[in-house]
């Protein structure tokens, strides 16, 4: 078993070196594909973070009925906690609201000196975690009793959702196209190494090697190409992101970008596994043709 495995890996490595130029081309194309994939993920994470941290589009304020007792208000607080897609729930009494309002007026605050907090209402302020589920979440919030009015920015949320949708579709198609191109390039590379070893395949058939065995070196070749591209992508995206992109975003003072370090291992796994999968898929077809002896 082990002998066979070593033999198969040796075959694969040999043909990788023999067709090094094509291997290089495959690794390059697959790397471009994976970099696109990884960049899209980082872009999405950062956009989400930006919406969370900077924009208040996801902020919702619910104003409570004046007649509510402290217990009832606490009850509403509990109910809000129970809703999954909500975070940063905070209570603002009408006194606090006035205070905040006056503060925001700055120097003009004196103009409102005779305004009492009774014109305002007690409220809860919270954010929606996943904006794409905005409507469902707000429907649940609406079922809570004791709410007199809800302030939300539905049009903005809708626009964000629309834009996200477009970006998502675009990313999906770009990635899909790159995956197809990668598979084609790998298929071509493996085809060349299959062709250069057709005598071997022919002999393997005659001495009774199984199809799976004959397929294996090319399979391994595809996987190796995939893993190489995965590793390359990991370092490329890591260094460009942490050393170039991240500082730029930070310098603009917009927000603190998503950290790559903290998700290095998931990213590494993701790149290597998707690279290996694409490599595997690319290596299946060209051998099939030569198996029919």
């Amino acid at each position, binding site marked *: 078993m082990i002998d*066979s495995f070593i033999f198969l890996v040796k075959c694969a490595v040999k043909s990788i070196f023999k067709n090094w130029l094509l291997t290089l081309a495959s690794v390059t194309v697959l790397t471009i594909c994976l970099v696109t994939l990884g960049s899209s993920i980082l872009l999405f994470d950062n956009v989400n973070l930006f919406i969370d941290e900077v924009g208040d589009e996801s902020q919702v304020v619910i104003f409570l009925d004046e007649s509510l007792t402290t217990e009832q208000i606490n009850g509403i607080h509990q109910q809000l906690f129970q809703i999954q897609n909500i975070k940063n729930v905070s209570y603002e009494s009408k006194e606090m609201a006035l205070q905040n309002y006056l503060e925001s007026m700055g120097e003009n605050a004196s103009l409102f000196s005779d305004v009492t907090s009774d014109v305002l209402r007690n409220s809860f302020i919270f954010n929606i975690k996943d904006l794409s589920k905005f409507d469902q979440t707000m429907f649940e919030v609406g079922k809570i009793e004791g709410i007199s009015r809800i302030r939300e920015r539905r049009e903005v949320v809708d626009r964000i959702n629309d834009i996200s949708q477009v970006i998502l579709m675009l990313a999906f198609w770009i990635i899909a196209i790159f995956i197809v191109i990668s598979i084609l390039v790998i298929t071509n590379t493996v085809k060349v190494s299959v062709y250069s070893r057709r005598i071997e395949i022919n002999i393997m058939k005659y001495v009774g*090697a199984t199809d799976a065995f004959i397929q294996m070196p090319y399979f391994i070749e595809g996987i190796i190409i995939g893993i190489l591209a995965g590793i390359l992508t990991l370092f490329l995206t890591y260094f460009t992101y942490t050393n170039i992109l991240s500082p730029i975003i930070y310098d603009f003072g917009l927000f603190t970008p998503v950290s790559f370090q903290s998700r290095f291992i998931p990213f590494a796994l993701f790149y290597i596994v998707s690279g290996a999968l694409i490599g595997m898929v690319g290596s299946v077809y060209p051998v099939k043709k030569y198996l029919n002896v």
Partner: protein
Amino acid sequence: MIVFKNVKKTYPNGTDALNGVDIKIDDGEFVFITGPSGAGKSTMIRLLTCEDVPSEGKLTVDGTNLKRLSRRQIPKYRRKIGVVFQDFRLIPTLNVYDNVAFAMRVVGRGGREIKERVMAVLGIVGLEHKVSVFPEQLSGGEQQRVALARAIVNSPAIIIADEPTGNVDPEMSIEIMKLLSSINRNGITVVVVTHEQRLVRAFKKREIRLRYGKVEFDTAHDHDHDHKEKSSDKKDHHSDKEDHKKKHSHKEDKEDSEHD
């Protein structure tokens, strides 16, 4: 035991390569398959190696109907047979040792076993001193002996050789045949396709001659009276003249082989 029962083979382009072949080859036999070019010899071999299936009739090897073999079962069946080709089919990038060892590796055999067995079969074909030489540095005869070593390394029950001496000089041809016949003495069934009547005569083994996809004659049946009585007048007639005819067609065959 190999049994062809009314085997017919029509290629997709309509060529009738085999036209009702009936042959029985016992375990441990040595058989020459002869006949002019296009008679269907290689087609017979291709059916035996499961590269193709009969269009009609039944071909069984040790009771297994080859038509019934599934894709998964074919490799297992092929481990029972060793095949030798006219063009050797050695892997140019591997030396003699590795060319032979290759056949064991690809069926999942392991380290020490390979070494012992490969050296043993290289000894049988008399090439143990050439283990690290590459195919292009060998003569045709030597290359064919490597191919023969590779064919027997997995201990097959049957050796099938399609014109093994086609690319080998005359003296070496005799050597190759001697090797095949000594392999046969160890109980392995040997089926050899050849154009060379010279070899057929020298080795005095069973000869099955094909023509137009049919068995023209089978020396095993010369002593088989039952079969003679069944066969038609025409056949009887021509077997009277068989000796004469053999010599005659020998010339034909020579010409044929030059065409190849």
